[in-house]
């Protein structure tokens, strides 16, 4: 069975990403590996899911019937590295990520996790946008 790696953040974009990934998983008959990670280097990180978010995600995925696992961790690696490394480790055939709208200046200052994933992934990447 092939694998699809999903980068998840606890917001509307994250949910859209997961539901797109579920569709892909059904089409490809693949297993989903949902990743949410933080470097824990700041006091507040809204991109990091808390236990409540994770159990919600759990329930959501279970309802779809697609085989899945959730990797929720604190890691030294950046979120982009974590997603790409996991995809490589599992030999994933697809990575699904959410894509925010960013101004060029915002991109320069903050960098972009999505961009790093797009450039360094070995497999295909599906970038989901908010409808």
């Amino acid at each position, binding site marked *: 069975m092939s694998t699809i790696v999903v980068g998840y953040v606890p917001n509307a974009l994250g949910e859209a990403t997961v539901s797109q990934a579920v569709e892909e998983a059904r089409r490809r008959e693949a297993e989903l590996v949902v990743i949410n990670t933080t*470097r824990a280097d700041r006091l507040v990180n809204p991109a990091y899911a808390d236990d409540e978010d994770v159990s919600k995600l759990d329930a959501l995925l279970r309802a779809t019937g697609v085989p899945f696992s959730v990797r929720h961790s604190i890691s030294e690696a*950046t979120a982009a590295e974590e997603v790409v490394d996991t995809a490589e480790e599992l030999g994933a055939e697809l990575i699904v990520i959410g894509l925010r709208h960013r101004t060029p200046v915002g991109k320069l*200052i*903050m960098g972009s996790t999505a961009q790093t994933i797009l450039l360094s992934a070995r497999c295909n990447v599906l970038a989901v946008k908010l409808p």
Partner: protein
Amino acid sequence: MSTSVQNTGSGTAAPGKPVGELVFALIIVSIGVLGFVAGAGIQTPPSASDIGPRAFPFAVSALLLVVGAGLVFQVLRGHRGAADEGEDVDLDAKTDWLTVGKLAGFVLLHAFLIVPLGWPLAAALLFFGAAWSLGARPWWRNLITAVVLALVLQFVFAGLLGVSLPPGFLERFGVFGG
């Protein structure tokens, strides 16, 4: 934020043996001793109408000596100081001497680089090094932040406020002061 969050006695003491704490208390005692020894060398003008320049140093030295001795006694009896708490401080964590050393090293390096390189470059290097020591990633974002911050500070403090920081290679541009 917290320089001011004081442990009220319920918290965890510094982990490890109290050797460091004992040494610190002994250093306080020895500063007291040093105060007496060096204080004896202070010249007192014979015409002085008051208690002279020696009395207060002796009083302070005596305070340090007595309090330091009391602290040595306390530590030996097992009374430990409660380490400072703070939002970013994990009291259960082991002391990361390597990071402390790296930070101190970068500050020292900065002191030697201000004059030859100019303040902005030396400051950018300090920021980059300190953030790297503390685990900032990725490196290029760290670098951009360091350079931008150093330039902004040079511009605001030297250019706008007139604090004479050596601009180094920026000398040619008037807005960075000099």
